[in-house]
């Protein structure tokens, strides 16, 4: 009834326009960067580019791709994302299964759960962590990007909450048929948990792709940097030292359009997985965290 009243119609009109503007506000900066990356250098330097490329050219992308350091950092990031996600997922699955059991079935459950959760609320801080990594000889290895953060307690909790929603009868039937817990986990639980696993995979992928601080902290040779760390030094710190002192490359990073292209390439994988991500995560998240 209220739908038809004049004040409500006026409100709806304003609301729609407001939300439309808000939604544009969230992507406009990215569109601007995209437009700059496709514009001619002169137009970009003169600040002529707003949301549409001026004098369209692929020059910036050509120069970016020409840079072997940049390409190598993409490779490091891809390798890191694939390996890191696989390991995190495996650990989350194997830890979430026992933790999802009732205490009556698995008596040690609460002790383990506390050991896991405590790491979320207290830590030794950056310095002791750094020293442990150093003592383990992980500094300047690829594995420093993967191993220290492999156990993701937050994702494990998300998954264990999902596991709890799986009907007990499924598991009981499997156990009566003589299947062990490993078999039950991999053949009964995992196939019905695909939405949750998709959510975890995508969260973990985004996490690994975006991580930059560990690279900065533990890798001293900038040629080993993953893309996010490379971008951090070149674009944020404007640090030329991660490039060789080839004047051609110096010119390359000082250019606005090239920077824009690099930023956009850095964001691209997230933009690509995002639509799939969005389909899953709302359900996965709400099931996993809110209802508890």
């Amino acid at each position, binding site marked *: 009834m209220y739908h038809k009243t004049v004040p409500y119609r006026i409100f709806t009109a304003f609301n729609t326009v407001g939300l439309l503007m808000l939604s544009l506000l969230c992507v406009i900066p*990215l569109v601007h960067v995209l437009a700059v990356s496709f514009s001619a250098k002169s137009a970009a330097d003169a600040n002529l580019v707003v949301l549409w490329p001026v004098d369209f050219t692929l020059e910036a992308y050509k120069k970016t791709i020409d840079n072997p350091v940049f390409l190598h950092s993409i490779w490091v990031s891809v390798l890191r994302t694939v390996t890191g996600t696989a390991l995190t997922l495996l650990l989350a699955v194997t830890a979430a299964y026992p933790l999802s059991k009732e205490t009556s079935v698995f008596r040690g459950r609460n002790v383990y759960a506390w050991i896991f959760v405590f790491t979320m609320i207290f830590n030794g801080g950056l310095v002791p962590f750094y020293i442990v990594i150093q003592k383990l000889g992980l500094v300047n290895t690829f594995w420093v990007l993967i191993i220290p953060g492999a156990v993701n307690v937050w994702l494990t909790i998300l998954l264990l909450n999902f596991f709890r929603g799986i009907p007990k009868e499924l598991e009981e039937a499997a156990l009566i048929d003589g299947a062990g817990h490993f078999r039950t986990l991999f053949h009964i639980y995992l196939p019905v948990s695909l939405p949750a696993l998709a959510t975890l995979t995508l969260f973990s992928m985004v996490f690994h792709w975006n991580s930059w601080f560990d690279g900065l902290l533990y890798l001293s040779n900038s040629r080993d940097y993953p893309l996010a760390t490379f971008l951090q030094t070149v674009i944020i710190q404007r640090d030329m030292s991660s490039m060789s002192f080839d004047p051609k490359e110096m010119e390359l990073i000082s250019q606005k359009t090239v920077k824009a292209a690099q930023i956009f390439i850095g964001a691209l994988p997230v933009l690509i997985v995002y*639509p799939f991500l969005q389909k899953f995560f709302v359900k996965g998240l709400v099931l996993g965290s809110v209802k508890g």
Partner: protein
Amino acid sequence: MKGFKRTWPFHLMLLPSLVLLVIFNYIPMGGIVMAFQDYKPWLGIGGSEWVGLDNFRYLFERQDSLQVIWNTLLIAALKLVFNLAAPFTFALFLNEVRREGFKRYVQTMVYLPHFLSWVILGGILLDVLSTDGGFVNRALTAMFGIEPIFFLGDGNWFRFTVVVSDIWKEFGFGAIVFLAALANVDPSLYEAAEVDGASRLRQTLHITIPSMLPIAIVVGTLSLGNILNAGFDQIFNLYNPLVYDKGDIIDTFVYRTAILSGEMGFGTAIGLFKSLVSLVLILISYRLAYKWAGYRVF
């Protein structure tokens, strides 16, 4: 023993994660003793001199560390309030949209910034907020005729920029829990209100908002435990020496003192101070969330 025979697969499944947690989470906790030492890397924890609480005394005497604690509290508190209010309000307005297609479109757009890293967003912000021809300053000049604002180079504007850009990044994603709460409201409540002739505003005040309150209390209390996390990634990628006095937070300060300047004992002490205060706050806020809204973490 009979129990273990039945549950050994569980222990085995947990073993790899447990080993990693011990190595990378529990062993570093032992390194906390460095906070009570004048730690020298070449002497190690065993050889460094014990100095008792000197590092902590130093922490509360140094002008810069007190300033840093204040910055952290201020920035985090502002974020806490606005990152609760903005998603709440946004969810309320989005809830009034009846066209599903438009609703989904808005949601898709506003969730996006959450998934981009502060490196990417920092790179974008450095560009669009710059004083010489940045997109934002040009728009402000064109619309209001004001002088360009030094968003990232002036301490007060820096704080403003940090809080606003964080809201911008997270409000959409933060709204998910509120939208979920709204989807669970019993439609018959609205029908009954309609029959009673309640306007939409009244329905919002008496049905919609109350049904969002429990989850708002949970989100609010839980983020209380994060009051010393002002956002390392964001600050680190946006700040510069010009705004160290008003923009430096505990986490960035630890990085600069301990890792860059090598004051390891002092860096550990301030890190420990942060962890301890956070731990207490988290335990309190978990308890409150349970008491007020019946929420358990898991």
